[in-house]
């Protein structure tokens, strides 16, 4: 619907309070899920800052690495991790609903799709840990 149509006909817009998501547990969890993206972005930005500091030279990059070891950074990363895990769990739970996998005429059970997600997640995390986490 374009703006012109909207203006020609009176349209009822239901008023909505800014705190509607506090009125029920499900709304609240929905909002937590949506806000998790903010923490995903914060972490991406921390990598972007790292690349910028890396481009500036060794002293600047070392200072960045030191800033990662402050209590503030530690606390921030814990909060970011909690939201990232919530994102992962909710994203995986939605996958079997969004993506119905068919094999011929048979539908792969959604639980299997969910389980596969978790397995792939574990394997990828393991690979990352071996590649990055060990020197």
């Amino acid at each position, binding site marked *: 619907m374009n703006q012109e149509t909207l203006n020609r006909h009176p349209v009822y*817009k239901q008023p*909505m*309070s*800014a705190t*509607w*998501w506090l009125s029920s547990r499900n709304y609240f969890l929905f*909002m937590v899920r*949506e*806000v998790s*993206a*903010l923490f*995903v*972005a914060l*972490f*991406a*930005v*921390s*990598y*972007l800052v*790292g*690349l*910028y500091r*890396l*481009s500036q030279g*060794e002293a600047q*990059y*070392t200072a960045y*690495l030191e800033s*990662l*070891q*402050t209590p503030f*950074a*530690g606390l921030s*990363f*814990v909060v*970011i*991790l909690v939201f*990232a*895990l919530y*994102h*992962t769990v909710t*994203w*995986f739970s939605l996958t079997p609903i969004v993506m119905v996998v068919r094999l011929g005429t048979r539908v792969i059970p959604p639980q299997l799709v969910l389980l596969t997600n978790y397995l*792939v*997640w574990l394997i*990828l*995390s393991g690979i*990352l*840990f071996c590649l*990055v*986490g*060990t*020197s």
Partner: protein
Amino acid sequence: MAARLKTTDPFWWALFSAGGTLAAFLLPAHILITGVGISFGWIQPEVIGYQRLLTWLEHPLLKIYLLLLISLSLFHWAHRFRYVLIDMGLRSIKAPVAVLCYGTAIAATVATLVLLFFCL
């Protein structure tokens, strides 16, 4: 045949979805290793030390990986956060909200691209 595209939403949704999937599978491990791990001293900061990281970044595949990880995570944020702001009552300024969210993701993507491929 050529139906005129009335909305750009499918394009942003595709980026949102790709970013959401990438973030779901890869970010917890990244956060645990280079974030929490280094902060709490479980992981030596040397694993992402200056020389080591520079040597890694000589490989174009790692540059592409980091670009996708950072950029798609931000497009994922942009799309979700756009609707969070609208749901929180910014419906009257829908257009500027969209420009601000997607614009931030685009700017950060350009910055990452320039840093990875021209400065490192």
